[in-house]
């Protein structure tokens, strides 16, 4: 009964003229899927903001992680963003589980060009995910609305990547704030002094401990092969959600499954709000 009502409500909320439900992309994390009523809605705009400039790489990684593997991606960024945070790097994307040949990067000179290019890309049926990177500045709510409509028409996933947590109101379906989280120490590592002794340089045990190694090293000189790898962790916060409650989670990118999983060393976070606290009872 309630499910039916929700369904009809969702149908009413849809902009006129768009009759196909584009479906959604499940996260694979039950808690998040529950909050999102099934998964990240396709055919909608989602804002992903980095907690700060430094966390932009993590936010970009989170955005790329949302893309289904094998999907056609368009990454649109301003010239300045590409110069400051670096351009997407093919071998790295490949290691992240995305096919680099399916990524189209577009450098826009201004925000205006960027928004135009995003709209064009969203209208193209061959594109599954469009990522627009907007480092600085506010974005016109009209532009956000236009992007949402374009996404709804094309059925693609529109992701707006922002350099800092925005405070403005938005018509985006969801808004996430992403920051990098310390990765979990996998069992069985914690650098042994012998590893640090190479080329005849002795390591003094009494000084502060050396940086631990990400992988358990073998006795070889280059401790690179084999061993358990530390996987990237993300602290994500869902601060706006048109379909359900908000929440905060710590996720971990699983290289083997190429999807997010709840971090094994989940740090205590505030309990996710059961309802939207900002919405007052009339």
């Amino acid at each position: 009964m309630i499910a039916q009502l929700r369904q009809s409500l969702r149908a009413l909320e849809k902009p006129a003229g768009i009759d196909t439900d584009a479906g959604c992309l499940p996260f694979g994390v039950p808690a998040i899927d529950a909050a999102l009523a099934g998964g990240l809605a396709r055919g909608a705009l989602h804002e992903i903001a980095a907690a700060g400039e430094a966390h932009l790489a993590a936010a970009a990684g989170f955005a790329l992680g949302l893309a289904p593997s094998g999907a056609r991606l368009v990454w649109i960024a301003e010239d300045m963003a590409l110069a400051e945070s670096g351009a997407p790097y093919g071998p790295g994307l490949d290691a992240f589980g995305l096919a680099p040949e399916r990524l189209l990067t577009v450098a826009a000179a201004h925000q205006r060009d960027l928004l135009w290019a995003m709209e064009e890309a969203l209208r193209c049926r061959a594109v599954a995910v469009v990522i627009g990177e907007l480092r600085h500045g506010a974005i016109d709510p009209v532009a956000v609305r236009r992007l949402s409509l374009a996404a709804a028409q094309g059925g693609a996933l529109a992701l707006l990547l922002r350099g800092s947590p925005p405070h403005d109101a938005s018509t985006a379906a969801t808004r996430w704030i992403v920051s990098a989280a310390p990765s979990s120490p996998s069992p069985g590592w914690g650098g042994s002094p012998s590893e640090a002794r190479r080329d005849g340089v002795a390591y003094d045990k009494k000084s502060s401990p050396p940086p631990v190694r990400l992988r358990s090293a073998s006795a070889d000189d280059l401790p690179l092969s084999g061993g358990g790898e530390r996987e990237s962790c993300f602290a994500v916060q869902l601060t706006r959600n048109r379909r359900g409650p908000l929440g905060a989670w710590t996720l971990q990118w699983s290289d083997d499954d190429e999807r997010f999983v709840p971090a094994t060393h989940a740090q205590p976070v505030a309990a996710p709000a059961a309802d939207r606290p900002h919405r007052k009872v009339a």
Partner: protein
Amino acid sequence: MLSLWLRRLPIDRIERLRERTTAPLVVYGKRGNAELLTAIDDAAERLGLTPGVALAQARAMHPGIEAIAEDAEADSQLLDNIADWCLRYTPLVACYPPDGLLLDISGCAHLYGGEDALVADLSGRLEKAGLAYRIAIAGTIGAAWAAAHHGAPGSYRCGEERALLSPLPLAALRLEPGTVAALARVGLKRIGDMIDLPRAPLTARFGPELLRQLDRALGQEHEPLNPRLPVAPYVAEQRFAEPIAREQDVLASVARLAGRLKLALERRGDGARRIELTLFRTDGEVRRLAAGTSRPLRNPAAIRALFVERLHALSDALDPGFGFDMARLSVLTAEPCPARDQAEWVPVSRPDRAQNYKDRTRSDAKPVPTFADRVLVQIGIGGAEDQTELDRLVDRLSARLGARRVRQLIAQDSHIPEIAGACMPAQMTGTDNGWDAFRRYRAQAELSPRPLRLLTRPEPIEAVAEVPDGPPLRFRWRRALHEVIAAEGPERIEGAWWSEHGGPARDYFRVEDKAGLRFWLFRAGLYRDLAQGAAAPSWFLHGTFA
């Protein structure tokens, strides 16, 4: 062959820009160590001055003259502009610096109603622009040039070259001044004097250039014309009785011209890869807009759509002035294209795109797939139709933003990280771009992870390492201090040792700081290779991980 000589180009250029004065005007330039007059106007000519006279001498004779230094660059710019503008008569226009143009009007003159009508049209326009000119038409470049510069301007038929050239001075053969003077010393002043002389002694004495120029002028040896712009394999043009100025009209004429080009392209099974629209303004300005495509194209609507984007991208408006009186659409690069590819192009123009899209989605509406698990979505993962759609997107973006801004990643066979992954304009890349080979290599070599984003240039950081060869303990990047809590490495990547500028070997580390940020750092140079007393190797940050 039409030769146009703008005999007072520097003077005309200066006078176009300012109000007419009564003082005689001369233009001077440095030749060797002397300042000589290079161009003079009519008033100065009446005073008895000629080009080549020293400026000091001219000033002494006539203190009232106005002398302006020459500006060769502006002159050649003006000549280029006039050459562009002459493209309305023929696509084969060559500059003959410093002040001449050569137009190959074979097969073009009848479009204007004959050679005389063409010359009348050209003269009228030149007069309106305030340029002094001499025009001659002859069968060969040499004869036309000689007639324009030294003979009576006019139109000469093929075969009349001998009669035309005979009375002209030898300088009309475009010879070195030294050769002309040497010929004058032996009493040869006119072309007619030497036309029938035995050839061997002439060559022996004056070199092969003399007879080559004579043969070329007489049409006995071919002289190639070197056009200023490459000649397009396919051209369609339209002249307007009434100049057009509105963008819609320009686009409509693009569509019309593209329709004509399509017929020509189809006949030879070609498609356009690069298309140029040339608009001729009534006042002589020429606008050229080019658009590229990622696959051979001949659909008029698709070509029009490209120019819609191209016109939108102009920073200044099209600026039609008093209107365009001619438009030309040329295919600069054509490639073979199978007919069936073209059928898939759906002509969609800006206003009706949304409508069209809806129609298409309805016609091939599929049941909404259920997403029980993380499934591959049906949109955007392949199929020929998707490729076509994507090519159209690439073309639109490239037309508006510029082809170099729309890029695709390619894998290159190199162990140096910044070379291994590179960017290429998407219109120039294929479908695979070497990533299949890269994946095989990565699996085989067990390549350690690479960063998601790579800085264009590695940025220097201040790093403190526990042991010289070990990972850094902390480092400062862009003024922020990062405490390293975990590190992986080193991965040693040698520089390009075979090259002089290959750079030192690098030890790459993947580090994580307290906040969980992950970086890719390297130390440029190894301690073991350091010379005695040299500074320690420096550290750089090269990329960031997710």
